[in-house]
């Protein structure tokens, strides 16, 4: 394997680990929040409430998902 392809693989691996890793739900949440932000950008009240609440909802889901995965539980 050439040095360049090894470097590219390592680079891709770093970003995969960094953005997705063992919490793909958080990456998905971010994608949904970005899409929502564009959808509701004209609706001021809805936007400022919806974005943080949806993010918090996904965080709760992720924490509950992690709890289910704790060994011995």
């Amino acid at each position: 394997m050439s040095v360049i392809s090894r470097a590219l693989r390592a680079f891709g691996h770093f970003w995969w680990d960094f953005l997705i890793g063992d919490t793909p739900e958080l990456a998905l949440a971010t994608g949904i929040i970005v899409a929502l932000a564009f959808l509701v950008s004209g609706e001021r009240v809805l936007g400022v409430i919806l974005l943080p609440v949806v993010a918090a909802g996904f965080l709760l889901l992720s924490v509950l998902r992690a709890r289910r995965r704790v060994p011995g539980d």
Partner: protein
Amino acid sequence: MHSTSSTLVLVLAVFGASLVEMVEALTLVVAAGVSRGWRSALEGAVVAAVVLGVLVVVVGVPLVRYVPIDALRVVVGALLLVLGLSWLRKAILRGSGHLGLHDEDKIYARTVASLTAAETGAGPATAAPPAPGHDHFDGVGFMVAFKGVFLEGTEVVLIVISLGAAQHRLGLAALAAGAAVLLVGIVGLLVARQLSEVPENLIKTAVGIMLCSFGIFWVGEGAGLDWYGGDLAIPVLVVFWIVVTLGFTALMRTNLPSGVPEGSTA
């Protein structure tokens, strides 16, 4: 014109993130210094810090100059949100007892044992006590210190570039990170050991809260959402995330399973 509140949150977030990551890096540098010699460990740490500084300039400056601010804020906001949510997730799991706290003492002992074993050729269980520091170049000590600082610092660089570029305050963000690196470096050199007393989980929670606040704010602003109060919405979002974090931690504490492995990490 940038408001004082968003500048303050920016400085605190970068300083806190850098502090936590550099404490973790210091553990590896001290472990390398004690077991393989200080000269190589310090050289490795300094070279990694220089490479990280070059990365900030090479990636950050073109971002600030050439990428449209709204597009930059959406991308940077999304990046900060992923990072912030992941830090808060760990903080909540650790705060509620579902996950063991990050233990610098354990990491230090493990690294010293494996480095000493590598030097003596013995297994970790039979490793000899750390050899006194020698002054010749040691490739293993250099690489362990370099990797420790570089890998922990990469997250700091991302935060510096993201927060600095989206607010057009790259210099200030880099300065805040540099101050944290200097502080940890000086204290680490003075006491010549890892800083296990630093309340890492608390600082990580605070930084996670700030990253989520900036992340949501910039994703919204970049998409065209007009926040009430402009930059003043950031402190409001900080309060929101504090309440969310405390609430979720309390909720998870009532839900603590039996038999959670001590010191488990994620």
